[in-house]
């Protein structure tokens, strides 16, 4: 009852919270970045300083745009807080645990938190850098930081500038920083910051808090989300990409693309729920028409085929020229815009299996077994040649999952 009441109050206040709390978690389930040891650290923090007190403090902190949208400032604030509270990193986990931020923001803040201002040795390749060429970029960087721009964003702009000048390699960036310091474009401290950012490869971060906040608030202005949902599917780490699907979405697509992809799934869902999909044939020779209603599974496969077609169509459009959409991303986008609920998420995502079936380990082993069996049936002389054939038949007939008989398939789709 108590939980329900809290949930109810939460649902009531959630939309009002949206306008102020930049990364308030409304979509993600269990955090992929908080394991058992981090949970223990969070519990210890709560015990030591009180959950309510910490919650009040961080809620206020993340309602200030200048703080919330810059990881460097967040870390700075946490460092200041460290005088009163031990364990800066633990505090970052506390903020996530309180849902004041989500995993995407957490990941950025954690990365920023790990950057250390260590001593850096000047580059030996200074000769490859034209000092006049880089001056403008460093002065711009300096001005931006002085104007209060988030340092990691200012650094990314600087790297963009240097890349345009042809300084694309890590060695080039190091050398450019050395030259800039030597020429007095930047101070010793600024040099230290730039070098630590370079070492931490901040310019390769797919997303900064600023970018994320810009995308997220633009999206949330367009759509109404009905409260918090726990989508574990979008939070799980994709081992290949080393990030979650949601993180991948915000790192590669802007809010307009996300809206477009969400719309695809919204339509697919409506089509899947339809009980009446027909093919209309208008005869060429007269005005007669013929209507062929589709059966339930035909409707199902038709809808999936249509989605594939639409996916290919948006991928061929200019809007998706640089970042092609795939099915998992489209489903994540639809969850992000609220077209799909958390409980439907995995089920919808699994539909990809229908046109793109994954081969299980058992299947792979069976196909190897079948191959060896065939080879053995040729190599082993008669009359024992039939034994591997028999083994292959057993594999096919008993162990392998039955496949629909294509002769029996009378479906239109």
């Amino acid at each position: 009852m108590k939980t329900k009441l809290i949930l109810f109050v939460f649902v009531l206040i959630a939309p009002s919270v949206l306008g102020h709390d930049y990364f308030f978690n409304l979509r993600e389930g269990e955090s992929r970045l908080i394991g058992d040891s981090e949970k223990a650290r969070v519990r210890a923090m709560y015990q030591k300083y009180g959950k309510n007190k910490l919650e009040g403090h961080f809620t206020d902190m993340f309602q200030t745009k200048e703080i919330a949208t810059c990881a460097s400032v967040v870390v700075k604030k946490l460092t200041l807080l460290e005088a009163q509270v031990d364990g800066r990193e633990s505090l970052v986990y506390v903020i996530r645990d309180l849902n004041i931020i989500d995993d995407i923001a957490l990941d950025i803040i954690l990365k920023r938190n790990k950057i250390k201002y260590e001593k850096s040795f000047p580059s030996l390749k200074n000769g490859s850098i034209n000092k006049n060429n880089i001056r403008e970029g460093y002065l711009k960087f300096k001005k931006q930081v002085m104007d209060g721009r988030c340092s990691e964003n200012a650094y990314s702009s600087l790297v963009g500038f240097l890349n345009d000048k042809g300084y694309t390699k890590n060695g080039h960036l190091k050398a450019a920083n050395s030259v800039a310091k030597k020429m007095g474009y930047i101070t010793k401290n600024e040099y230290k910051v730039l070098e630590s950012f370079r070492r931490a490869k901040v310019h390769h971060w797919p997303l900064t808090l600023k970018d994320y906040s810009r995308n997220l608030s633009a999206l949330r202005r367009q759509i109404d989300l009905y409260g918090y949902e726990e989508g574990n599917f979008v939070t799980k780490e994709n081992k290949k990409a080393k990030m979650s699907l949601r993180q991948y979405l915000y790192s590669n697509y802007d809010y307009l693309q996300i809206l477009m992809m969400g719309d695809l799934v919204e339509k697919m869902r409506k089509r899947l729920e339809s009980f009446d999909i027909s093919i209309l044939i208008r005869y060429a020779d007269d005005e007669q028409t013929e209507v062929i209603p589709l059966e339930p599974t035909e409707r199902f496969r038709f809808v999936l085929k249509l989605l594939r077609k639409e996916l290919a169509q948006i991928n061929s459009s200019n809007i998706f020229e640089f970042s092609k959409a795939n099915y998992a991303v489209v489903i994540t986008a639809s969850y992000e815009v609220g077209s799909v609920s958390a409980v439907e998420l995995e089920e919808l995502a699994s539909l990809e299996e229908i046109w793109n079936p994954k081969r299980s380990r058992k299947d792979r082993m069976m196909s190897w077994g079948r191959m060896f069996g065939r080879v053995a049936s040729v190599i082993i002389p008669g009359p024992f040649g039939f034994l591997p054939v028999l083994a292959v038949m057993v594999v096919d007939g008993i162990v392998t999952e039955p496949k629909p008989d294509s002769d029996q398939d009378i479906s239109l789709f």
Partner: protein
Amino acid sequence: MKNWKTVLLTLSITLSSQIFGFEIEKNVVARTKEFEAKIMTRKLVDLESIDSYDGKFFKIVYKKNEEAIKFYEHDGHTQLKAATTYYHLNKARKYFVEVLKSEFVKSLPKLTIRIDILNKFSELGHFANDNLDPQFNNALSIPAGLGYPRRRIAPWNNEIWFRPSKRIHISELGGNDRDKVQLKYILKAYRNQTHMVSFQNFLSKLLLGDAWSSSASTVSNVMRLAGTSVIVEGIFQSTGIAVDLFKQKYYRLDSALVPEIIYHEFAHVALSDHLAITHSSPVNEGMADYFAGKIANSKQLATKIKDYNLFSGKKVRKKQMYRYEFESQEYANADFVFGLLYEAEKIAGEKGPVMLYNVRTRIETDSSIRNKLLDGILRSCQLHCPIPGLNHIQLLKLFHYKGI
């Protein structure tokens, strides 16, 4: 005065039996927890008579009689049948009324249950002439009839008929011999593969020039290859004989003593407000199978009961794929629909049986599996599934993976 006392006693017994119903313990065939069929003592409830199988909801009669079988009539085997049918029919009714909350079943008038009846059913005359082809080894639910007053044939309500068992030879059964066809199908693939391998071996020897060399070992190898093919071909050609040799030759079914058959027949009646029981179809048989399985709490029907049934029974076969033949009346008793409904129930969870019971309002006896039945399940799910949007997609996936 004494007469008055007797009249009063009889009256009070009659009245109390009308209100409360009698109970009596009888031997019936029932299932153990391990699904073994055994004769056990069970309580027969809701009896309206103190000396016969005449209850509030069911009256068990012998053949064409209208009077309920007395507890002391006929032999022990007939008594066992009467008690077994009475017991399991009440259990089935209870399921529909209490679990599925069926108003239709609740409002059903008392059903007449005929055991050991040999006559065929006649839509006009209730019973076909005694001289016509006596019926054995099955059970059927018959629709109500208006009767034929000019021939003194009274109207009748829905009834369930259980035939006596009779040992018959397989040759009398007719129809497709599924075992034989299936084995032949598997062996065909094996035989083709073996011939192909022998041919490949022969070709490789031919290309290497070994086939025509005069060495004794090479000739022997070629002979062995040919021998393998001949053996496999021989096995393939004699499949039918082998199957005939090893399979069951005689069959019999005492339908009144198989609990799941009793449930199945009552399920037909419980579904008959929408699914006419005039004839069998894959859909109405599958629906009845599903509810029989639910009442029996089993994924198998009429199995493990060799004393009373030598036919194969039915099973939920998870891997069974859809074939277009399943739509035909010839396959009315296949177990595809049973398995499909069982899988669909799992998706709807606890509300699955209610969801599937309501499917009957959206289909007819002759509805197709691939169209109307699936459509009915999907529509019923919209009303009864716990998470309709999600369960709708899960059902569509299930149907797809079943090859429909």
